[in-house]
């Protein structure tokens, strides 16, 4: 019997190596795998490259992972937040590397990794400093920039429902980066609000099929904070 559920956070985090690229889902406070981020803090892997839409808020969660000096590089579209104190301090002191990527390019680069596509061309960023040093090429008279896939060694995902095959649904804007990061992770680890029996999810409604999921931890985390 296939059973992707793990019972403990330690099991969920097992084997994450120093130097890993870690994809972290969520947009704003919605769909963030907060428990798994805390689990990663506890687990201890360091020298990480983190891919997330922003570098964390205050001194908790992702910001705390940064604060502990565990992140070598962050790839994000929006290196700000309501309270970006940790990132800004580290960045000013030259203690963290930053790669700014337009949000849609960041999403597509992960989708590409998940889909076995090493590189693609996009109009986004052409003629700006984010395309500097990158290959520009014309198609039908319009210039495009070549962007390469971002594969994760690990992806941390928050889902709404999950079954033992790892099939997932999301809730409202909690979907965001989660399904594409699940595709792009070599080891995809999920925290789910709800557990359902196999067969209970409508096959027309499953957003992330279990083929993209390795481990699922049941974390009834509750609603995102209302800011």
């Amino acid at each position, binding site marked *: 019997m296939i059973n992707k559920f793990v019972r403990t956070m330690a099991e969920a985090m097992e084997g994450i190596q120093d130097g890993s690229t870690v994809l972290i889902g969520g947009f704003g*406070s919605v769909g963030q795998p907060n428990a798994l981020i805390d689990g990663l803090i506890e687990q201890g892997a360091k020298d990480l490259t983190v891919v997330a839409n922003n570098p964390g808020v205050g001194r908790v969660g992702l910001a705390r992972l940064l604060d502990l000096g565990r992140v070598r590089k962050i790839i994000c579209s929006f290196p700000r937040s309501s309270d970006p104190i940790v990132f800004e301090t580290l960045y000013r002191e030259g203690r963290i590397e930053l790669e700014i990527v337009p*949000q849609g390019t960041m999403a597509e680069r992960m989708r590409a990794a998940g889909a076995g596509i090493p590189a693609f061309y996009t109009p986004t960023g052409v003629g700006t*400093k984010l395309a500097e040093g990158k290959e520009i090429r014309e198609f039908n008279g319009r210039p495009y920039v070549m962007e390469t896939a971002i594969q994760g060694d690990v992806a941390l995902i928050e889902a709404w429902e999950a079954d033992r095959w790892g099939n997932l649904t999301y809730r409202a804007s909690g979907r965001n980066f989660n399904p594409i990061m699940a595709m792009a992770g070599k080891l995809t680890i999920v925290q789910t609000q709800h557990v359902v029996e196999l067969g209970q999810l409508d096959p027309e409604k499953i957003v992330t099929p279990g083929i993209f999921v390795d481990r699922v931890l049941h974390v009834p985390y509750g609603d995102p904070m209302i800011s």
Partner: protein
Amino acid sequence: MAAPVAANWKPLTRDQMAARVAQDIPEGWYVNLGIGLPTLIANHVPLDREVIFHSENGVLGMGPAPAKDKVDPWLINAGKQHVTLRPGGSYCHHADSFAMIRGGHIDLCVLGAFQVAENGDIANWATSENDTAPAVGGAMDLAAGAKRLWVLMEHTTKTGESKLVRKCTYPLTAPGVVKRVYTNLAVLDVTPAGFAVIEMVPGITFDELQALTDAPLHRASAARAA
């Protein structure tokens, strides 16, 4: 902005600016509104004129802001504000959401800007070349991908500098993409000849507007104001 002494015209308020843009959005368009000022536009589109608002984080068909006691904590827009979903709305993931943008399926994007140049260049994400960690978010995707890009911004900075320029001095978001600019003083089309004024606030003269504008202005043949 500080109005000149004894001017017999008044700049539009932020809400008036948003309402002015709203007036030009026809039913049936798929529209993405940038963070900040452009977000206000939605308040001025009556619900019975069906305009479908898109947010980068996978929300299509956003409705008005929820009542305080009706907030769905799982539903935010790209500006991280709580929103609602209209009947007919749907959710998707980030790659599909940006496929809508990059694939030219969004009829209109309205962004704020630091500067717009007379050739349609827009600078709205970094305030200097030395801003080492500027936040781009989805601005470049929207600027490069939407079918039409309009800008909604004050005509000048707080210190009176023109935001309509010959050439952007701030880092570009995308070159040559702006089709129209709505300011608190005028509505201008970006044409091959540069900015064409198609409307001005009541009472202002073309020369007064030009005096407040770095880029040279042209009178649009279709200009509706004096």
